[in-house]
């Protein structure tokens, strides 16, 4: 099938990117042949996005070489990349609703007369020609606000084709699509490579990658570990390569599970406003004294599950019982007052007031109960005192408790939130990505406090994308995929490979 002398349109040789304290990419090498769909897979944080941004000129690598069409290049901005024929289809669309498809496509590279009159007719013809040539079903004069997600993605693809891209980078293009739209997208992509374009496809869904890619490169911990052809590999091998075999053994701790159930979710389903099903018949039970890990690739319904538990949204069917309360019909405040602690996954959006001092942030979520409140007044001295305690106990590195939350580094913000939430011996702790983006030292502190809470008898729901974290802490690991709990595993008897397979939907128990 493959010609022997196919040229590499894109070569990445030994690329490295370091951030203070983190190596995002090291020794990344990929060879991509013309007219192929090349998939790059890896877990969250494996360095895929950093690599893509490097290829698109958004990030400058610290070392290594990038060759496009055989020539070594030095990309300074996305404009450089576009000029060399590299186009990026972002995961989050960059489109304006209140404008037409045509306007969205041509913006920034408008054909003009005298330099300022846009030749809309000419642009429209060119777009129609591109659409027909590559089999993209779009109407240039349609308002964007009338389009669905799949169509918007086609507009994004048309946008890069309009700029003459020969190499398309698609960043997790299927994350936002429903299955039929995925099929349409794949048909489009096949059409593109048939016409001689090259597609770089980033994903962590093994099924998709196996069905669409000509080559698959696997990334782990910032580096490329292997390249396979789909016909010579299988899901199991890919999952192993993605996860690696270097995970620590689960930590042995005495288990004192109380018979009392702190969280009971029974056949809960949830639909998004656009009708898409996010949660499908979820059943979970969590007792006091245990840590239940929830593993899954992000966007498989974890966020909605958390919101159900916190009473932020209501299930379409089924029930959610939190510490004996019906979460759907209880105020979030009452749920919290009953003894639920919540460590949100987006700490800056949901966990802190970035422009308020630490001691005010300490009050958040406890503003109605002693000691943070005294009748209708906030108890400032108690808040200040307790903020100091949190700072000491959780080793929050801060010049003081009067500084704004935004002045702290991410890891220290997280330690402060964990400290705040673990105050007052909560019975149920919902911890979403509690150690994301924090350094190893902070991670150890947070883990230790979570384990202490467990031995005090608290029930902990640990939502994490970090397999190491899940294996180290969890007593049981539930795996969520496409809104379903596909299996519940015992970490002592499970290999990371099995977990990886379950997370990517390759195997369900």
């Amino acid at each position, binding site marked *: 099938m493959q010609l022997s002398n196919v040229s590499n349109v894109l070569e990445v040789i030994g690329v490295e990117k370091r951030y203070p304290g983190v190596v995002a990419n090291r020794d990344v090498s990929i060879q991509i042949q013309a007219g192929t769909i090349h998939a790059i897979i890896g877990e969250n944080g494996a360095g895929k996005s950093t690599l893509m941004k490097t290829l698109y000129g958004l990030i400058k690598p610290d070392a290594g070489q990038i060759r496009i069409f055989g020539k070594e290049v030095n990309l300074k901005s996305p*404009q450089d990349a576009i000029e060399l024929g590299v186009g990026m289809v972002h995961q989050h669309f960059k489109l304006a609703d209140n404008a037409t498809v045509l306007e969205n496509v041509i913006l920034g590279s408008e054909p003009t007369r005298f330099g*300022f009159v*846009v030749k809309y007719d000419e642009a429209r013809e060119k777009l129609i020609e591109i659409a027909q040539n590559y089999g993209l079903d779009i109407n240039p004069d349609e308002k964007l606000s009338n*389009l669905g997600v799949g169509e918007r993605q086609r507009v994004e693809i048309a946008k890069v084709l309009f700029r003459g891209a020969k190499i398309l980078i698609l960043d997790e293009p299927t994350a936002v699509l429903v299955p039929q739209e995925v099929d349409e997208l794949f048909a489009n992509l096949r059409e593109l490579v048939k016409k001689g374009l090259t597609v770089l496809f980033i994903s962590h869904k093994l099924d998709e990658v196996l069905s669409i890619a000509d080559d698959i490169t696997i990334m782990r911990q910032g580096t490329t570990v292997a390249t396979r052809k789909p016909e010579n590999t299988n899901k199991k091998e890919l999952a192993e390569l993605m996860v690696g075999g270097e995970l620590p053994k689960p930590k042995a701790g005495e288990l004192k599970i109380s018979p009392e159930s702190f969280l009971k979710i029974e056949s809960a389903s949830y639909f998004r406003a656009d009708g898409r099903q996010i949660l499908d018949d979820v059943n979970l039970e969590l007792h006091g004294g245990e840590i239940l890990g929830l593993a899954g690739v992000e966007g498989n319904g974890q966020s909605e599950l958390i919101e159900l538990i916190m009473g932020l949204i209501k299930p379409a069917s089924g029930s959610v019982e939190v510490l004996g309360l019906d979460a759907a019909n209880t105020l979030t405040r009452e749920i919290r007052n009953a003894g639920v602690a919540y460590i949100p996954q987006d700490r800056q959006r949901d966990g802190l007031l970035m422009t308020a001092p630490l001691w005010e942030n300490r009050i958040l979520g406890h503003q109605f109960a002693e000691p943070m409140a005294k009748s209708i007044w906030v108890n400032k001295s108690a808040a200040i005192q307790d903020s100091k305690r949190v700072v000491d106990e959780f080793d929050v590195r801060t010049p003081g408790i009067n500084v704004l939350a935004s002045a702290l580094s991410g890891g220290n913000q997280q330690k402060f939130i964990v400290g705040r939430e673990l105050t007052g011996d909560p019975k149920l702790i919902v911890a979403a990505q509690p150690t994301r983006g924090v350094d190893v030292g902070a991670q150890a502190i947070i883990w230790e406090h979570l384990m202490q809470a467990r031995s005090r008898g608290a029930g902990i729901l640990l939502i994490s994308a970090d397999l190491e974290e899940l294996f180290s802490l969890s007593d049981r690991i539930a795996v969520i995929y496409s809104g379903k709990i596909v299996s519940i595993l015992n970490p002592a008897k499970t290999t990371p490979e099995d977990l990886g397979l379950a997370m990517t939907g390759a195997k369900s128990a």
Partner: protein
Amino acid sequence: MSTNIAKTNSNARTKAKSFFKSPARITLLIAGLFLIISLVESITGAVDITAPGTSGATLRFAIPLLMAGLGGLWAERAGVINIGLEGMMIVGTWTAAWFGFLHGPVVGILAAAVFGLASGFFHAFLTVKIGIDQAVSGLSINLIAAGAARYLSGIFFPPVGGDRTVSPPVETLPTFTIPLVADFFKSIDEKDIFFISNVSGLIYGITRDLSVVTVGLLLLVPITSWILWRSKFGLRMRFSGENPMAAESLGINVYRTRYIAISVSGMLASLGGAYLALVASSVYREGQTAGRGFIGLATVIFGNWKPSGVFAGSILFGFTDALRVRQADSVMALIMGAGIVALLLSIFYTSSRRWKPAGSYFAIGLVALWINQRVETIPQEFITVFPNVATLLVLTFLAQRLTPPAMAGMPYKRGSE
């Protein structure tokens, strides 16, 4: 599947659009409206509604609102709300009067344009570069402009024959009457034929004693439309207001685009002020702008962020202003007209079996006619507040159909996601 639904939707939309785009139908609609007004006029005897003087006055009252509205439109299309329009108009009235007094009205208008541009640039600097809240920046411009105008008036005007709040009179600008056309319609207006004379009176009113400035400023409506929908800058300006992140990702300098658009916004508002000082009157007077900058902002919403809509809004608000000044009785007649229109709409909706709008319009019509029969005189205050009420009504009833620029009023920093 979803594609089909979207297509049908868009077909319906294009149909609705093409209905209002067909010139023949628009003419018919306007003619129908005039028929009703003529009818009302002959019933109530409020002859002032279509008197030539009214249409002329409407134009004079509408132009300052139009300029403020276009100013607001330029700023908001680029993504920045300009609350400072009122202050920028004050800049225009003062500089036009002072430089007009010193060097003649043409220089006065040019000076207003330059100082307006500068005031817009100041707003852009505060909001785009420094990132001050857009409302705060606009309000501060209003306060600074009002204070500075009062202070400078006290220093400059008394020595040259004005007083502390009024400038010395400025030479007026030339006016002209369109030959033949104006005479022709004047002759018909005088014949007093039902409907035809009414229309002719209106045309006569806006073709005689036209100021060159009026014509020039009116041209800014099609020019703005052309820039927004035909030019490269317009496309980039709209995206700066709709999705600056997308624009930035395609290599567009959102900051520069906003600087230009907001400066133009200030210039337009200031020209509106210059019109007040040099065309609608011939002096600067303290408080001359009288909140027109804010009404201008209202026309932007009323006009759904489109130049033609802003024009329609300023004509409507200018019309109510003109009637208030000329003959308050006419307002009563207008209410009757509105009542008749509402009843007709109700019949229209009944025939297409859309009961909800039919019912609401029927109720509105009844209320209007009841007011017309029962209330003796409409209080002056009500007429003054009419533009605000009209904007509120538009916001209430048409809010879902309004399409404001998605990011207007939101702070934007380069490189944000």
